[in-house]
């Protein structure tokens, strides 16, 4: 009776695994592949078009710093887009929280407390949105559009009027403007790779203990080898002195990079390896099935909006760090780029499909378009046109791959 053996997807040689991967891609499960392709093509084009500027250490560092704010906002958005919801107020939520932080700092309150309070304010806003969406049943588009408008007013009310309000807190300003010592950059890279390898090996050990097959170790080696090479190149380039001033060297990995990667890593572990993450994907894929499986759908929705708003505050913090100031108009325009970044990275607006790393890749694509066109001296109009075109292309790829994966299944 039980002589039938069902595979687990881990069997076979490296070649079988690679074939299976392409099989999945062909059937519409493309993940970040289109975005990674776009990224490669864009880097190629801009390197060819502006060889003396684009892939220079100074510009590469700028690219990462410019992308960080957007990455964080797109990552925030992933949590709600996975539920086929949207948060149009994410940007201004960050703005409001930063206004709160500014007011507290002005009262002489210590920055860690001011920052924590601003995060709590963000989380509370997320709870409010989640409550209206999950409990009252107002579409998230409408709730967050209302807050998008309202919070622009709230920022002005809190800060008095438009303009910049200086924030002079060394640790906050350091995030976007300071770099790791060169040795620490290497240490972070090695530590990150070691952590990844450790997790992979523990997974494999657990599978072996359960008598389950493992993928060929050569694939693991290839994956981490590639990551080590790519990471090594980036750290090496970032450790080159990129200052034009001979007396004031600028070198090292910008501090914001390990912070961003750390948050993405933790978020990714939560999505992939915790019950909450699994339930988030389930609710995004089929809310009724999730409900029948006993998942508290409303609770999952509310938590997702809380996480989204809290991460938006961190994006807002990056913005403040870059400017060295709080802005009364912060967060108005970046929010749409955040949605675009997530979608370009391969997160499906239909819900249930996408990962945090996709947000980072999408954010890099959008940042590189702006950066590269800027270097070529093209104006902002062109930037908007190209970015818009890429977004529509990404959404089309998503829609088509959905169609393909639903028609490739035989419904009896």
């Amino acid at each position, binding site marked *: *009776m*039980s002589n*039938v*053996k*069902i*595979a*687990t*997807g*881990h069997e076979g040689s490296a070649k079988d695994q690679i074939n299976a991967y392409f099989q999945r891609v062909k*059937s519409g*499960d493309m993940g970040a592949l289109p975005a990674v392709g776009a990224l490669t093509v864009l880097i190629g084009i801009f390197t060819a078009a502006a060889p003396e500027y684009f892939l220079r250490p100074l510009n590469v560092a700028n690219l990462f710093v410019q992308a960080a704010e957007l990455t964080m906002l797109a990552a925030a958005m992933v949590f709600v887009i996975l539920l086929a919801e949207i948060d149009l107020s994410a940007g201004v939520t960050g703005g409001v929280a930063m206004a709160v932080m500014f007011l507290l700092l002005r009262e002489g309150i210590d920055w860690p407390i001011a920052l924590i309070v601003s995060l709590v304010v963000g989380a509370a806003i997320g709870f409010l949105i989640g409550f209206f969406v999950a409990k009252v049943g107002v579409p998230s588009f409408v709730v967050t559009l209302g807050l998008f408008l309202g919070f622009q007013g709230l920022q002005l009310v809190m800060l008095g009027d438009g303009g910049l309000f200086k924030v002079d807190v060394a640790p906050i300003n350091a995030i976007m403007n300071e770099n790791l010592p060169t040795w620490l950059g290497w240490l972070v890279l090695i530590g990150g790779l070691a952590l990844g390898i450790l997790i992979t090996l523990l*997974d494999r050990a*657990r*599978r072996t*203990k*359960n*008598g*389950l097959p493992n993928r060929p170790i050569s694939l693991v080696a290839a994956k981490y080898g590639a990551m080590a090479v790519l990471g090594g190149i980036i750290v090496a380039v970032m450790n080159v002195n990129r200052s034009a001033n001979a007396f004031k060297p600028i070198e090292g990995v910008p501090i914001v990079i390990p912070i961003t990667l750390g948050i993405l890593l933790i978020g990714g*572990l939560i999505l992939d*390896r*915790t*019950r909450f993450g*699994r*339930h988030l*994907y*389930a609710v*995004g*894929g*089929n809310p*009724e*099935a*999730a*409900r*029948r*499986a*006993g*998942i508290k759908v409303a609770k999952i929705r509310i938590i997702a909006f809380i996480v989204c708003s809290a991460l938006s505050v961190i994006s807002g913090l990056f913005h403040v760090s870059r400017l060295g100031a709080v802005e009364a108009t912060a967060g108005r325009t970046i929010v749409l780029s955040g949605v675009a970044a997530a979608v370009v990275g391969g997160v499906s607006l239909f819900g*249930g*499909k996408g990962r945090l790393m996709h947000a980072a890749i999408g954010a890099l694509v959008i940042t590189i378009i702006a950066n590269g066109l800027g270097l070529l001296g093209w104006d902002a109009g062109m930037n908007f046109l190209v970015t818009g075109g890429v977004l529509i292309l990404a959404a089309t790829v998503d829609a088509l791959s959905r169609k393909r*994966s*639903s028609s*490739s*299944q*035989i*419904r*009896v």
Partner: protein
Amino acid sequence: MEVPVIELQDVKKSFGPVEVLKGIDFRAYAGRVTALVGDNGAGKSTLIKGLAGVQPYDSGTVKFDGEVVSIHAPRQAGHLGIEVVYQDLALCDNLDIVQNMFLGREEIKNLTLNEAAMELQAQKALESLSVRTVKSVRQKVSSLSGGQRQTVAIARSVLRQAKLVILDEPTAALGVAQTEQVSRLVRTLADSGVAVIIISHNLADVFKACDDISVLYLGKMVASLKTKETNQGEVIGYITGLKTMDGVEQ
């Protein structure tokens, strides 16, 4: 007399002005397969959704193992040991087979999902059903056929060691071989002491696989029969309303 695993007394349910269940009495016993038959719209799925806690009844008594219980959420049904395989299957297309089978009851180790343990159990459950058509337990459900989905949904209830398993038209979408397989599986389940309720329109299958037959007609339970003591003609009479408890209608 033996205590039924599930006993319904005078259960009612309306959708707005429409009364769909008009005071139902119903029993299902451990180790027995009970068929729930009736024409389209008779109220079979509605009766089941009440037991599953998906759509609670408006009134009436529900006894589980002889004790009065109230089932107002799927979680409560799950805790009692009631598992339902729905007509529309209710699987998450974006998740794989293992993830679907353990949805809502994931196994945790060191604060994180114990994927290896879940994968192994899912594999064992499917293999015990002699499933041949599923390539990998890590296949996304979106890539499965209707029959394969049915198998996954049934295997899920096997996995959870339910006391009462309810199948809403389990074989409606299946080919001959898989129907046979499901029937065999249902018998195995019942023999292991589980009470099984099957909703079906296929009387031939019902007579092959079931011990008891309950007939719903327009929201009323018009007959509860032992398969051995009846025949297809009589059951069809009840289903179509030509026959009632009190005798043949004119």
